[in-house]
């Protein structure tokens, strides 16, 4: 078991021991309800929550009261979209988003459309995964109430031009939400400098606990108003009721604090490891393709198509190594990655893609072991691949008359 290597840090991250240490007292000693105003148990819990709010706010350059705690980024995305649509419905009903967003955005948009509550424009992306700012500008109408464009993509790590999007949103007086689940804690995110009005993030993507996340909601210039989706005890200024998950919040706060302290060094380290892995894989093996922008991406993300080798079969060969694939066989829908499709990557190459997600606990030794294993498995599977054989014989796989069922 100890030989296993975890390199799937976009799916989730292991929790940092220091985060756990910060959380533990809040389970069995400081277990008060942070809403109990009339005794010390409540005050202790509240102090923990307040400190966490400050730590989170500091990381993203927000004010503590602009942070709303949720169960994770999925909930934050749901609240951001649905609440804005409901609150601003007299102003308009048009949302602009992009085709490469996480399902927590896309599926909410689809359901809003289905219910007739919103009209949605899905901006395409270019071959490297970036939206076109002119297309964004052109898509804005007097009915547009919200632009929702993610910060870093969860499959290809590509980081959108958030500053520019924020500027355009300001210019046009449209609210700007960003799903920054993958970016917060990894690279600098500054809601003021970036002109972000609403932002989703999640604890388990930054070495914090699962089941806790947050939504940044701008309080001034402009003040963002939301209609509550979860009603009850009026916690979180009425925007999200429910007894606060105090240990989770404390963990998220500590995770943000650590990320802020170590970001500069850690992102440089990850970039170095990522490039080491990329070179080892792409220099040793021919017929490999990097998916997504080469530099506008998270330092820990690498997404490569290994032509002629189906992704799931490669994962199977990498037994003790946890990475993921854009292959259809690993998805519930049996469709290959819609993100890669949006970049114009053909299905035949999408099926061969592997996502490596490097994180805080990966070492150089692990990177070297992964590179060696991947090179040897790809080589083995290519020897077994009829496509590789045909390509070597000079057959054009694109124009070949496949017997499709």
């Amino acid at each position, binding site marked *: 078991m100890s030989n296993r290597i975890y390199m799937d840090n976009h799916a989730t991250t292991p929790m940092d021991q220091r985060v756990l240490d910060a959380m533990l007292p809040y389970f069995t000693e400081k277990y008060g309800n942070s809403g109990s105003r009339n005794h010390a148990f409540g005050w202790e819990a509240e102090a923990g929550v307040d400190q966490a709010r400050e730590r989170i706010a500091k990381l993203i350059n927000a004010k503590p009261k602009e942070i709303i705690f949720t169960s994770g980024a999925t909930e934050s995305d749901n609240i951001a979209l649905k609440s804005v649509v409901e609150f601003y419905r007299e102003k308009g009903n048009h949302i602009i988003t992009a085709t490469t967003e996480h399902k927590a955005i896309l599926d909410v948009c689809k359901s809003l459309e289905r219910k007739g509550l919103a009209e949605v424009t899905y901006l395409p992306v270019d071959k490297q995964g970036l939206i076109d700012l002119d297309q964004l500008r052109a898509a804005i109408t007097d009915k547009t109430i919200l632009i929702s464009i993610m910060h870093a993509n969860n499959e290809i790590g590509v980081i959108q031009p958030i500053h520019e999007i924020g500027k355009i949103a300001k210019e046009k007086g449209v609210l700007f939400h960003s799903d920054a689940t993958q970016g917060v804690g990894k690279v600098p995110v500054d809601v003021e400098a970036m002109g972000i009005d609403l932002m989703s993030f999640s604890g388990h993507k930054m070495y914090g606990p699962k089941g806790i996340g947050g939504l940044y909601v701008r309080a001034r210039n402009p003040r963002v108003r939301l209609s509550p989706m979860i009603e009850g005890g009026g916690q979180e200024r009425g925007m999200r009721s429910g007894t606060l998950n105090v240990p989770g919040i404390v963990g998220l706060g500590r995770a943000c604090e650590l990320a802020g302290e170590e970001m500069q060094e850690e992102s440089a380290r990850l970039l170095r490891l990522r490039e080491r892995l990329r070179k080892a894989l792409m220099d040793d093996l021919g017929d490999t393709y990097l998916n997504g922008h080469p530099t506008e991406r998270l330092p820990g993300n690498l997404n490569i198509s290994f032509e*002629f*080798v*189906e992704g*799931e*079969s490669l994962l*199977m*060969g990498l037994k003790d190594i946890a990475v993921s694939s854009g*292959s*259809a*066989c690993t998805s519930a829908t*049996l469709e*290959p990655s819609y993100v890669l499709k949006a970049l114009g990557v*053909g*299905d*035949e190459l999408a*099926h061969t893609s592997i996502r490596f997600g490097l994180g805080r606990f990966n070492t150089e030794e692990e990177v070297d072991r992964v590179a060696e294993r991947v090179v040897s498995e790809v080589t083995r599977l290519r*020897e*077994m*691949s*009829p*496509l*590789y*054989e045909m390509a070597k014989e000079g057959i054009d*796989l694109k124009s070949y008359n*496949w*017997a*499709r*069922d």
Partner: protein
Amino acid sequence: MAYSDKVIDHYENPRNVGSFDKEEQDVGTGIVGAPECGDVMKLQLKITDAGVIEDARFKTFGCGSAIASSSYVTELVKGRKVEEAYAIKNTQIVEDLNLPPVKIHCSVLAEDAIKAAVSDWRKRKGLDDEDQDKKVG
């Protein structure tokens, strides 16, 4: 998803990987699937004049279950008469390899590969394919 031991065994130690010269008279080649669907199987059968499958080779682009299904099929058909091989149903592959429902298409592809290889051999021999279906059906 966990794989069955048999699938793992065939994936790790695939039987009869390789190619025959597809121009040989006694070789039937079946290539089924398509790269954009994520599976392509090439199955080749070497068949005697008496219609017995002497040997088989495969190459597969696809998930572990697709590789295992094709490897397994090469073992299954060896020594059999073409008619018998042609009659192999995908359900047998599903059962023998313990394939989960999402992987049934791998077994279908393997069945198709056998049929395509046999048909190719028959065509080369100048035999009519329709007779084949009648005999089996």
